[in-house]
């Protein structure tokens, strides 16, 4: 149901404010129908990049191509990109129906077509029966779905989402994440999704772009990024990591890839010994902090059910891990 080619190509894209560079030489190919997430801390340039794609920010350098055609000079309303804003930005004086119908009604489509399409969208986001309500009469999650329906109503080739789940509570978020992914699968539109929430990025994306200081730090599938981070920033922003210094190189080691056993019982290619600094129970996992001489405290996650009784603080332990568990980073030092 998507029209047009939804592949986006960003070439050498930069945005400067005087001496400050918000987006720095970004090159990125976004495939048609892909769910791509821009992930980074606040100030990493992810939202600025999204606003440049949307057409709300001028481009200092570089180009944006949609299906091979430059849209850098096209005003926002001519780009035909749907957008879901942080805080939803619903039109407060219009009913749910009129909000969703807006993109079609500004395109002067016949009323019958609009009504049919709005009904279809209400169905998609499961808000049948809410057409006559005003936005303020809806819950946050419902408003979020109206914003999504409104942005998808005109079958845009690309949908841009700026932290759309930021205002929802944790439980609702997980639910909406699943719905979003399902909707993405059904409509086949290219999704470009901005978030600072790593779990959101991991659970929904086809590919994740990790950004820092206006630059792309690393691009890859969730599994690829998690298993093979290239930099210390990528390793620590997406999940947790211990950093080990060996032979002038830095390695990242995920807490759950380390085996912990009482002293003298550890077996593995790599082994260090230490003392338990603290242990915290999280239900599914036990999180240990282990003091190893000559190293930063090492964090170890242990399956709470399989490991049985937790080892007490002060216990002497062996830490072991396979060679493949430690990932060599490009950073020379930390």
């Amino acid at each position: 149901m998507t029209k047009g080619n939804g592949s986006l190509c960003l070439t050498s894209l930069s945005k400067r404010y005087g001496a400050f560079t918000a987006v720095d030489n970004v090159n990125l190919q976004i495939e048609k129908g892909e769910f791509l997430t821009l992930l980074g801390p606040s100030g990493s340039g992810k939202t600025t990049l999204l606003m440049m794609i949307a057409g709300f920010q001028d481009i200092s350098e570089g180009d944006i191509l949609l299906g091979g055609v430059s849209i850098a000079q096209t005003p926002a309303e001519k780009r035909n990109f749907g957008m879901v804003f942080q805080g939803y930005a619903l039109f407060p004086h219009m009913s749910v129906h009129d909000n969703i119908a807006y993109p079609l009604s500004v395109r002067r489509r016949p009323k019958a077509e609009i009504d049919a399409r709005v009904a279809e969208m209400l169905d998609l986001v499961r808000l049948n029966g809410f057409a006559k309500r005003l936005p303020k009469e809806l819950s946050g999650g419902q408003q979020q779905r109206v914003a999504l329906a409104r942005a998808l109503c005109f079958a845009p080739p690309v949908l841009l989402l700026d932290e759309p789940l930021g205002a929802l509570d944790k439980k609702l978020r997980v639910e909406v994440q699943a719905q979003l992914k399902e909707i993405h699968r059904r409509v086949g539109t290219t999704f470009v999704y901005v978030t600072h929430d790593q779990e959101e990025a991991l659970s929904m994306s086809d590919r994740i772009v990790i950004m820092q200081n206006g630059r792309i730090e690393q691009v890859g599938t969730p599994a690829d990024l998690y298993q093979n981070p290239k930099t210390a920033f990528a390793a620590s922003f997406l999940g947790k990591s211990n950093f080990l210094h060996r032979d002038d190189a830095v390695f990242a080691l995920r807490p759950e890839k380390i085996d912990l056993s009482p002293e003298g019982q550890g077996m593995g290619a790599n082994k260090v010994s230490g003392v338990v600094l603290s242990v915290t129970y999280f239900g599914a996992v036990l999180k240990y902090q282990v003091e190893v001489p000559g190293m930063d405290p090492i964090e170890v996650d242990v399956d709470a059910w399989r490991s049985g009784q937790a080892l007490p603080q002060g216990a002497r332990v062996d830490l072991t891990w396979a060679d493949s568990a430690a990932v060599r980073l490009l950073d020379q030092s930390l």
Partner: protein
Amino acid sequence: MRLPLKSGWLLVLPFLLLVGGLFLGPILNVLWISVTEPAPGFGNYAQLGSSDTLRRILWTTLRVCVMCTAFSVILGYSIAYAMVHATGPAQSRMLGLLLISFWISVLVRTFSWLMLLGRNGVVNSTLDALGIISAPIPFMRNELGVLIGMVHYMVPYAVLPIFAAMQSIDGRVVQASRSLGGSGAQTFWRIYLPMTKPGVVAASLVVFIINLGFYVIPAVLGGGKVLMVAEYISVQVLITLQWGTAAMLAAILLFGVLALMFLMSRFMKLSTVFGGART
């Protein structure tokens, strides 16, 4: 300790006495005069049907007030729009200029217009010196002059409520309209203007109500040619001493304003118009 209701009333009693004695009393007195002078009954009100002069004055007042309200609100809307979209320091400067014109006495402003736009005023003499006109443009002693003076006085009253309404708009709503394909004009007419409607209604109401009772500007800039209700009342009270007619006209103004506010309250909560919290 919480005060019981009775002593609460006691605390506001002085204020109630003040309002009752100095405000409500005289108003009731005016209403009373309007049905008792010169003879008991509704004779004064019957004049509205018989007197062409009275009807003409009321019609002039209404016409000038409506035009002034329209011009003030349109001008005020443009100024408020420019202010909302100006950056910090520029916005403060604009607000400062607006407030300065707000604070200058209406007399000073009215006589300034007389100096500027009179037969031998700055504007006419300049145009004459440049050879653009052969005879002075009649700005004063007509409705045009009254309108210029009144609009100039009322614009700040129009700007402030509209400015407040515009400030409360989330810029992302406007961006949302653009991203969904709305052109600049469509975004303005379908999103921006409806969202600033409470401010526009408040501004219109305030400007129109103040306009109804205008005295100095029509008297000075109209030069006796543009007779509006307030000036006519003062003539009746001070010169011809027909207090009954004056009181009747004052009552008409009062009921007019009340009716207007009632009408507005049917459309929207008045508390929002006057800056109360929105619910």
